[in-house]
């Protein structure tokens, strides 16, 4: 791993840079927001799909009972 990291990075992180926190905050806020958004959509999708399954079963059984 050691030779994977470009030496300029190692030195950069060793330096105290005043703008580092902003970059980290930007990434963190963004990732959390995106992950939360996708999770919310997926959860809603799963709930919807469950409802659809239940309903279509009811519709099918009704159709069979009607025949």
């Amino acid at each position: 791993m050691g030779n994977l990291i470009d030496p300029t990075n190692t030195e950069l992180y060793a330096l105290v840079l005043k703008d580092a926190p902003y970059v980290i905050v930007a990434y963190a806020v963004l990732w959390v927001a995106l992950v939360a958004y996708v999770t919310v959509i997926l959860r809603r999708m799963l709930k919807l799909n469950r409802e659809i399954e239940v309903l279509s079963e009811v519709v099918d059984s009704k159709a069979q009972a009607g025949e």
Partner: protein
Amino acid sequence: MPDTDGAAKGVGSVKRQLQVAIILAIVGGVLTTAAFLMAFTTARVQTFGTIDAPAAVETTYPPAPAAMQPTDGTGVRYQRPWLSQKIFYFHVPIAEASFLVFTLAAIFAVLFLVKRKQSYDTRSRIGMETTLVFTIGTMITGVMWTRASWLTNWSQLGREMLSEPRLATYTIMLVFVIAYFVLRNSVEDPERRAVYSAVFTIIAWIDAPISFFITRMVPSNHPIVFQSGMDTTNLIPFIIAQIGMLMLGYAIYALRVAEESSRDTLTVLKEQLEG
């Protein structure tokens, strides 16, 4: 007003759409994460401006070219490492994704006006929703970037927002997306709402190319991609991040479309049950 072309067919196509969306989301997520890791490890730190040292120091950063060295022979001038450049691997791809989904919304708005199919209005609306997500993402990373690399305090930010052409037109793009939803909420008749939204989307979209090309046309502080060239170790994560983010953008859009179709299917099923 759900499409009434059969619930069974709807379920099948929704399942396929959902699969594609989930695969794209996973691949996009992996690619952007990979780009993120590469950006902080293998990518060589870019330099920006110069810094003077009283004597030569042990460093991996190259000294500034001979022409830029102090003429009076005092100390050594080094090129300054540029940490906030790393935001590039996220900010630019997200901004590109926001332009992409906005364009998608505008295309569906045109299609709606021509063909008057309700599903195009839904797609256009979802495109605008996704645009909102990515526009806010771009603004957040952009504010961090601005704060880190141009300015020294927050009070300058407001002024910069209005006087810098790229920031100004992009801020307006965010206002457009918000205005779009305000407009939608204030029209009750579904057909009228769809037509007005489509018309407004097309007018608002004109701002997108203006915002995109403005840094190349008028003097601006905003950096332009590829103007100064990039190191190969920088270019690879940058391209991966772009591909990943565009995939993620489309995945979020497709997920929402699948969700709306499921909701329509649900309405159809409920109607069948009652009827």
